[in-house]
């Protein structure tokens, strides 16, 4: 049962893996670039959301 047999039975199948590959390549590249470049202040804000509570006392 080779994958290629089933693939060949779909017309114009070559385009599908190309589209998905490109889509995901772009998605993850942009994500990566953004994650590395995003400004520090924003990251610090986000990081501190769980810690940010003035009305609670934290005890261990």
């Amino acid at each position: 049962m080779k994958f290629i047999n089933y693939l060949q039975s779909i017309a114009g199948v070559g385009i599908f893996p190309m589209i998905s590959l490109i889509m995901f390549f772009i998605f993850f590249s942009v994500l990566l670039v953004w994650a590395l470049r995003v400004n520090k202040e924003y990251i610090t804000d986000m990081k501190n959301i769980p810690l940010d509570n003035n009305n609670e006392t934290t005890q261990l």
Partner: protein
Amino acid sequence: MEIEKFQYDNKIVKQFAFATILWGLVGMLVGLWVSLELIFPTLNIIPMTAFGRLRPLHTNAVIFAFVGNGLFMGVYYSLQRLCKARMFSDKLSAIHFWGWQLIIVSAALTLPFGITTGKEYAELEWPIDIAIALIWVVFAWNFFGTIIKRRERHLYVAIWFYIATIVTVAVLHIVNSLEMPVSFLKSYSLYAGVQDALVQWWYGHNAVAFFLTTPYLGIMYYFIPKISERPVYSYRLSIIHFWALIFLYIWAGPHHLLYTALPDWAQSLGVVFSVMLIAPSWGGMINGLLTLRGAWDKVRESVVLKFMVVAVTAYGMATFEGPMLAIKKVNSIAHFTDWVVAHVHIGALGWNGFLTFGVLYWLVPKIFQTNLWSNKMANWHFWLGSLGILFYAIPMYWAGFTQYLMWQEFTAAGFLRYPNFLETVTQLRPMYIMRSLGGVLYLTGFVLMAYNLIKTVKAGKLLENEDAEAPALEKVYVKHGSEHWHRVIERKPIQFMILSLVVILIGGMIEMVPTFLIKSNIPTISSVKPYSPLELQGRDIYIREGCYVCHSQMVRPLRFETERYGEYSKAGEFVYDHPFQWGSKRNGPDLARVGGKYPNSWHYNHMMDPTTMSPGSIMPTYPFLLDKEIDTASTPAKIRAMMKLGVPYPEGYDKIANHDLMIQAQTIADNLKMDKIETVSDREIVALISYLQKLGRDLKVYHLINDKQAKK
């Protein structure tokens, strides 16, 4: 900016916390009990307590009752604080809580009675499936409602993990539970054979991914920073962790079906994505552990953090092991053996268990406005639990390797060294005893925790509604210059939900759609015929008793398998199997080729008392099958349901099915009589024998016909 005053709902958190403890106790007790049944088979006293019926109860209880309530506890606590808002509706919270407990109770009231769909981790019958879907919608409604009225603009990474959980579990549950009702408490899976297997393990694997992992990662991302009072190590890493994890996870299901009759390409796809999964999984683990950098002194002092560190470490171990197990060669060792059992318990006892305990020890004193009753006792729990995990896992790894090595050993003359399967089971007894000991240790720790927390609760007073205040969210958001899309979707929960839905759907669709649409994926075998009415009834008894829990029906194309069982299994053999019964663990031998191997009388005696036929057998006894009448009243409905699913019975066959059933049953009864066994033909044992004799028979017929033609 106007400061708004509001209150967090701690009551619902408390309810889920208590339910977690209660069901954890039940689920683990059942687990201990079934582990003892493998050592002392006499414990399978009555049908309701037999291994095949109770083991599904154990897995369901631990996954959906213990971890389920645990995750709701974590979500309800952290979501309110991360959104700076009370839960959307107290009423919905209550419906969610009580609905979920009702589902758990109905599981406990059906599984021991043999009411099951026979699909692992999705055993609950269709009315309960519908209830689960409805309650899940209530949860989602309450969840997104809270997000919408939040006072914090951005959604913290924990919330993304929760969103992915809600969306994906809904998709998985609905797709895998599509079934054709026969009666109020009986249904057949909409899919058959290979397709059913693929859908089931796509579900099964992602139940692990999106029920046991993603919500707990969210909990990790909230509670570890919160408790250690330092922000997560890398927020950037958590973003990449999230997207990579949910994208890759959904593809990995077929690694549960390596070397089976599933088409090769689907197996390979599963392997590739499973191996890649190690990257985001370890990214997550590293992120969790490094959050504690510079705070290890706190870990030494805080039992809560100790639990969490071990939990995250166990996550790292299990997610290293997972990709390794997905490699075909390694999988051929682990599959069907106790290695897999060890692997899942590293996850369940270590990751889910310990993280839950950590959260409970921190959260219960907090909402009850007091200190933990006894830190010393909690430390005892920690050590007992850790030892329990080791005592559980190490013997199980040992048992897995032992059994594999015994299965595959050949003598110099080319025969199996251990042709009797039973030898490979009795050999494991010492390991099973050690494992139960591990279970006892772990459970003892759990009981200590329950006691400790009860004392804590008694000493404190629940702060049902916790006052909080936060500035209202401005309706109009002023952007700071140009903005990135990811930052935008972090403010938009619905778009975020849709994006994650798309991400998880792609993997599932690429795997499943070809198997459904392209016929040549499942080459049909001309001699494979639908089950006769008697065989169908027998099959339903097989499912009811949970035989699939210990017996596979899948001979892999490996020499040591074909030598032991016969020809390897083909996809075309299973086209009428609603649901498939390939199994995932062999406490007993494979049954795919059992048809015709033994006379009917052998099966009769074996079911009455397995030790008479194979001394030392650990199989439960099934004497009640000898007396119980076949439920012939259900035959027409069953045939009709099968016809609706595309099984080619002739038109109107449902009306005469019972006639055929009686004739076939009489033949078997007559045959038994020749071996001096007197039985009435309408007993369940007869139906079960007819089913067992059917297994693999059609393929033999196929070869007979081909051989004849070749001779001509």
